[in-house]
């Protein structure tokens, strides 16, 4: 049975998602239970697969029993295993948060559809992570995207509809670019399997066809990952989506996009592919640096909490891409660590923002006066997560940014180091805008309806933030795992 785990990891949540929305009322009422059970099962499968992938280096699964270049292959290396584990874990957290949050933000009759879309979204992401076939990647990108568009528009706010529509338009342009890039690569190499492409493409690296295909793939994936300046869909979408959706999307959606980009750059292509006409890595690193500073500066100017968090995402995505662009062992380790760190922390932050909105109605940074005393747990989780994102010592963020800076120094990119430091400083400043009134201002006239949020919402937020601190204290383990994943990816074990 264990040999089928890669397939089951994707298929079980998909079938659960199909089962929920059109079943008899009794099944629909337990929609949350079904979706949480399948997410928990996915987490268990992912844990088992991750163990196997780290032990063996690679796990692969052939659909229909067809050998790889002819059939579709699933393949999991340590990097994929890390992402699988992360996605499954955050999905569980977001679902347990949804149990109390979703009924507050959605009409009751839409809940089964909502849970179905959550499962479709995460199984789409899982499919993207696990697949070894580049066209299958496109299909699962579309599953995740369609579910994502619907999820953003699920709430009661009408602004969310426009945000979702704009995301749909940009996302479809991105997907079509990806499809086009796949077509160009197929035309040059005659195969769709990623490992096979890696073997066959070097003979045609010099052609304009391959260069163009590569460019379209990277641009398409950059839109999906919201790399500056293609991030324009992100702030509105994260601001107006229901809070469990913001948490899930911010934690997993963009990360998986980055993962797909890393796959294309490092697995489909070899390091030898460095077109002299267009220095791809320099452009990526430049855009990443610009994104770090731009996102942080715009976040500084925001008064809406969720919008501030959204721009903070633009900035943090810059860090992750920066590490991938520098692409030496240390920087890549930092990049992977920051994927984990940012996923956990941003999920926690969006959950806290949702809790605050639900119990006090506060959306603006100015409305938080005195909240530190009234909602101590929520604000403690928020503060811990913010510290970790800013990269304070003893948090997970410190380890990831330390690796990034070290990697930049190793690569001789001294100019990048001040950008990393300035970005961290700005992160601390914009989070201070939220934390300062909460702890150091006398309470305003807004009184919370309840002293704290329901435990079901609070627990995942606190757990995720605590994990950030724990990973920072026991920095050895995540760094070891990410280091091994990075080494295998870059081909220097």
């Amino acid at each position: 049975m264990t040999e089928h785990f890669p397939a089951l990891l994707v298929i079980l949540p998909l079938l659960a998602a199909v089962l929920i929305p059109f079943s008899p009322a009794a099944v629909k009422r337990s929609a949350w239970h079904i979706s949480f059970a399948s997410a928990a099962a996915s987490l268990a499968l992912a844990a088992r697969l991750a163990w196997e992938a780290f032990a063996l280096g690679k796990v692969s699964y052939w659909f229909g029993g067809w050998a790889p270049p002819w059939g579709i292959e699933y393949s999991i290396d340590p990097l994929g295993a890390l992402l699988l584990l992360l996605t499954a874990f955050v999905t569980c957290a977001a679902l347990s948060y949804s149990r109390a949050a979703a009924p507050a933000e959605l009409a009751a009759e839409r809940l089964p559809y909502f849970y179905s879309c959550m499962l479709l979204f995460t199984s789409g992401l899982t499919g993207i992570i696990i697949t070894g076939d580049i066209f299958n990647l496109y299909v699962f990108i579309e599953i995740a995207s369609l579910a994502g568009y619907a999820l953003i528009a699920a709430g009661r706010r009408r602004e969310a509809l426009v945000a979702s529509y704009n995301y749909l338009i940009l996302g479809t342009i991105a997907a079509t670019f990806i499809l086009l890039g796949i077509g160009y690569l197929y035309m040059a190499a005659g195969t769709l399997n990623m490992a096979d492409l890696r073997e066959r493409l070097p003979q045609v690296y010099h052609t304009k066809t391959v260069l163009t295909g590569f460019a379209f793939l990277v641009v398409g994936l950059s839109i999906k990952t919201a790399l500056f300046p293609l991030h324009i869909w992100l702030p509105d979408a994260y601001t107006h989506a229901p809070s469990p959706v913001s948490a899930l999307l911010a934690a997993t959606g963009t990360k998986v996009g980055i993962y797909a980009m890393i796959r294309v750059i490092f697995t489909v292509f070899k390091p030898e592919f460095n077109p002299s006409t267009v220095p791809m890595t320099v452009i990526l690193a430049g855009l990443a640096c610009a994104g770090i500073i731009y996102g942080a500066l715009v976040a500084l100017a925001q008064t809406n909490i969720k919008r501030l968090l959204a721009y903070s995402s633009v900035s943090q995505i810059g860090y992750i891409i920066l590490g991938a662009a520098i692409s030496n062992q240390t920087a890549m380790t930092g990049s992977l660590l920051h994927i984990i760190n940012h996923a956990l922390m941003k999920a926690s932050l969006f959950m806290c923002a949702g809790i605050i909105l639900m119990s006090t109605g506060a959306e603006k940074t100015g409305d938080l006066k005195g909240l530190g005393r009234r909602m101590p747990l929520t604000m403690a989780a928020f503060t811990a997560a913010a510290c970790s994102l800013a990269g304070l010592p003893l948090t997970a963020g410190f380890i990831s940014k330390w690796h990034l800076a070290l990697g930049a120094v190793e690569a001789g990119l001294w100019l990048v180091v001040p950008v990393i430091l300035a970005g961290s400083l700005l992160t601390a400043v914009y989070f201070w805008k939220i934390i300062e009134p909460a702890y150091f201002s006398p309470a305003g006239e807004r009184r919370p309806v309840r002293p704290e949020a329901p435990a079901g919402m609070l627990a995942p937020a606190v757990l995720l933030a605590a994990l950030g601190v724990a990973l920072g204290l026991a920095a050895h383990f995540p760094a070891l795992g990410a280091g091994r994943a990075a080494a295998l990816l870059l081909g220097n074990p």
Partner: protein
Amino acid sequence: MIELIAGKYNYWIYICLMMIGFYAIIAKGNLIKKIIGINIFQSAVFLFYISISKVRGGTAPILWENAVLYDNPLPHVLILTAIVVSVSTTALALALVIRIRKEFGAMEEDRIAKLRSDGP
């Protein structure tokens, strides 16, 4: 030069179509017009894939005893999948447009932007 044109003009026509659709998506303000643009944009890419599959002298990819050469069936399969994805996207986009129209009473981007900034 002539050989270049003769060998490549099929590809250039699909690029031309694609750019017409792309222009509609990014320059038009009407929400339905953008969806029409997306449809043109995507099917132009489909045309590109199908032109990859054509082989000179090939017949349709169905087993036939008199056939010497077949056209490449793989792009056909990929495009069948992509067409389904395309109609799904269109349908979801239309659902969004209908809700937007209901909530804002408008279908033009700048009018909606105004309503958002003035609105409650």
